[in-house]
């Protein structure tokens, strides 16, 4: 144990003497500061906007006078997506999510105004977030720091001396890895302190156990991720004849893991599972709705039999004599049918997306970059499932409001009403206030575990694999 610590200390000491390392570290440090700053600015601005417009929308809703409830159902509401606290750290897919949905009766609108929709080609190069620097740039820095760790000892001939002095290969590899991890910690620890401070400032007094757990898991998983790269660097250096081959192999590996493979696998998923076009998606829903019953067709058999059974139940000969508003009832029925069909199709579509993404998830076993990318997005609530959850909740709210308005119509509007105007066809505006505003409730951390089980298993796999490789190589490596 002692000799490993000694080697680690020596490694750290020489690393800090290297001017290039100092410049690179400084540069990455500056970049991190910029990332934190711009992430925070954006977070604050977006959430302030969201609050402002959500309030404005609410104010507009409440400002409506006495009205026919169906008019209110069409007046509708807005759901604006807010950012989770840790999205400051990892932007994830947020720029590609829409930011607002208009929620009205009978119609499921698209989630509009994504950052990407208004972007120039620039966004395709990525965004600078703290997570991105830790995921992409830090591994490269690790490779730059570690490529010569053992290879240069071999080139200098000092490797033979070390080993002949009784040091084992295992001690050497572990020692160098600890040293490399130690150097990386000089960046990692301040970054994690900074992000924790920002995280505390953002949340003020409302820090929950849940959020704390998320932050802790982020710290742990990034520590594991970076350590994996440290060990990889040392192992590649150990098996390389010269430091030059070690460097080129590591650079090649880095490019493969962070630039080429992620895109290639996602492209594969996209090529295999094709998605319907928007018009196909919408017309399929229309067709399915009409199959059940076409509310626009006065002779539609479904609505006719519905009417007949109502008349029979209430023992009346005309819908006008029903004890509730028939129009409201019909719309309630229609809304139920169309909402169910829409949800079925939406689920199917998301299922295709899920399958497309499954390649990138499984890839985590080959590529630790994908493991951290997926896990980090999930912990920061900027992943695919956060998006579908927002849409699901918005749709649930839309459905709730529409049906609430239909109920009001059934209850208060006379069957003799000919239109939505006129004194007898409107209800008191106090009902608008009874309708609570849309409130997004993020799902618990339990969902992260179930969604990202693969990523977590991949991490465990990588830890096991590296320990196995250290043992294996310790027995087989040669000093020359």
């Amino acid at each position, binding site marked *: 144990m002692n000799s490993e610590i000694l080697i680690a200390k020596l490694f750290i000491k020489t690393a800090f003497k290297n001017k290039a390392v100092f410049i690179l570290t400084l540069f990455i440090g500056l970049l991190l500061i910029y990332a934190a700053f711009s992430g925070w600015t954006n977070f604050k*601005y977006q959430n302030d*906007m969201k609050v402002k417009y959500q309030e404005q929308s609410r104010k507009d809703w409440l400002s409506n006078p006495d009205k026919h409830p169906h008019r209110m159902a069409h007046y509708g509401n807005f759901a604006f997506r807010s950012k989770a606290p840790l999205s400051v750290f990892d932007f994830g897919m947020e720029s590609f999510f829409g930011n607002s949905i208009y929620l009205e009766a009978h119609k499921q609108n698209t989630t509009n105004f994504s950052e990407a*929709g208004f972007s120039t*080609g*620039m966004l395709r190069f990525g965004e600078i977030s703290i997570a991105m620097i830790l995921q992409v740039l830090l591994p490269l820095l690790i490779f*730059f720091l570690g490529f010569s760790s053992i290879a240069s000892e071999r080139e200098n001939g000092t490797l033979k001396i070390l080993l002949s002095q009784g040091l084992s290969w295992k001690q050497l590899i572990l020692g160098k890895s600890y040293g490399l991890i130690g150097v990386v910690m000089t960046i990692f620890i301040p970054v994690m302190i900074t992000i924790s401070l920002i995280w505390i400032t953002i949340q003020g007094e409302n820090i929950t156990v849940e959020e704390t757990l998320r932050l802790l898991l982020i710290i742990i998983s990034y520590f594991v991720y970076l350590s994996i790269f440290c060990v990889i660097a040392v192992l590649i250096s150990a098996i390389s004849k010269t430091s030059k081959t070690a460097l080129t192999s590591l650079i090649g590996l880095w490019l493969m893991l962070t630039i080429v493979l992620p895109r290639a696998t996602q492209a594969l998923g996209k*090529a295999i599972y*094709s998605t319907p076009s928007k*018009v196909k998606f919408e017309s399929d829903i229309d067709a399915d709705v009409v199959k059940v019953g076409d509310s626009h067709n006065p002779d539609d058999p479904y609505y006719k039999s519905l009417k007949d059974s109502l008349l029979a139940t209430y023992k009346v000969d005309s819908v006008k004599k029903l004890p509730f508003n028939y129009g409201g009832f019909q719309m309630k029925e229609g809304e139920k049918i169309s909402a169910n069909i829409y949800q079925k199709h939406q689920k199917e579509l998301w299922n295709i997306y899920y399958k497309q993404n499954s390649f990138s998830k499984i890839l985590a076993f080959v590529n630790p970059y994908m493991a951290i990318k997926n896990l980090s997005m999930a912990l920061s609530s900027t992943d695919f499932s956060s998006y579908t959850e927002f849409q699901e909740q918005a749709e649930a709210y839309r459905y709730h409001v529409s049906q609430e308005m239909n109920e009001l119509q059934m209850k208060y509007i006379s069957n003799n009403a000919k239109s*939505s105007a006129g004194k007898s066809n409107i209800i008191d505006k106090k009902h608008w206030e009874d309708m609570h505003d849309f409130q997004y409730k993020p799902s618990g951390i339990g969902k992260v575990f179930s969604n990202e089980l693969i990523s977590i298993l991949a991490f465990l796999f990588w830890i096991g694999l590296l320990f196995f490789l250290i043992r294996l190589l310790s027995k087989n490596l040669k000093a020359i």
Partner: protein
Amino acid sequence: MITLILKNFLRSNSVKIGVLFLLLSGIISLFVGKQFMAKQKQSVAETAQYQQKHIADNVKNHKDEMGLLLYYLKFSLVNNTLPINALSIGQRDVNPSIQSVTIRGLEAQKYDADLNNPYNLLLGNIDFSFVLIFLFPLIIIAFTYNIISEEKESGTWKIVVIQSRSPFSFIFQLFSVRFLVVLLVLFVTLFMGCIFLAIPLDSAFLTYLLVSILYILFWFGVCFWVASLHKSSNFNAVILLSIWIFLIIILPASINNFLVNKYPTPEALETTLKQRKGYHEKWDTDKQATVDKFFAHYPQFKKFKMPEGDFNWLWYYAMQQMGDDESAKQSKELREKLDKRNELSANIAQFIPTLHLQIQLNEIAKSGLTNQLLFLDEVTYFHEKNRLYFYPKIFSEAPVSSEKWEKFKVQTFTEESSLNYTKIFFPLMVFIGIFIGLGYMNFRIKKS
């Protein structure tokens, strides 16, 4: 001499792997482009089919009321996807290439998003522009980073200096051979693309080709300059990769963050809120006042008198119109904001060749923000045209049967704007000049 250099260069295994890697990723990118084009084509075909059925169905269901029929009818406008788009998909995967609008309020429909898997968008396409911008430089770096340093490290450099009449022309030949090989890969890939994707050999394609060559030349310039510093292979590798990361990842991403924070778009949300209020509150205000405002916008319809009763279509469409009219200011501001964003990003990009290339390739392929904004303008125009066509028919209560509904086919918008060649080529030429000039000077100094 040069054939010898070429033979020697091509003998190396790593060169073969590099060339193969580029060709392979190029071919993959062509397939990605092909798939994208097929999906676009399918969407357009499905839209055309749907529109026909949709109009026929609604005409059947609402044969008595023009106003009610037009409440439902959707008309689609397609943003034409040129074949060359397959080589630079740009923003076309994010933004819908088809926009379907009724004649009701436009602002509530104009920005309707396409269905998208955000993960696909996040990781991006492997289109040819990606291969060119990201991967070509890597191979160029791999081919050239040790041109001189390797000879020095193996001790053969001295022999070269002594034996050749001019070491500089020797270096020049080493670079030329590599440049020609990479150029050949580019030509082969694009030639395959031309056939496979049915891209016409027009000025857009030639511009694409030319700007690609300049980009490759730019990276050779950078490598040439680094070689002229006479450092070790390891140093060259690190410095060149750092330049690559800086130009491909760090600078573009930082500038993107900067632009997003500098030009945020709250106007978008403002517009939707305004239009909702503008339209809906008219249900509870004086009918005549609304219709008067409508007549003020369209004096040509003054001749139509508002019918009596609780509801009439003139009033209804006047209300819808008010949603657009009252959010017009915000909508215009949004458009201006996006123009500013677009302009500033193109201007900044002139100084960053990677960004410049991406933006210009998108311009050439008509797949960038410029195209998207022009398409949105066209959607506005298209919507207005439909409105003006149907308004008098609705207000005069023309019978539904008086219209030839089959003639309402899907319309197509093709961006006609011409390219600014100076803006495309000049920035790259300047950078090429700078790096080759600096490299040349370094070699001269070293010699004397």
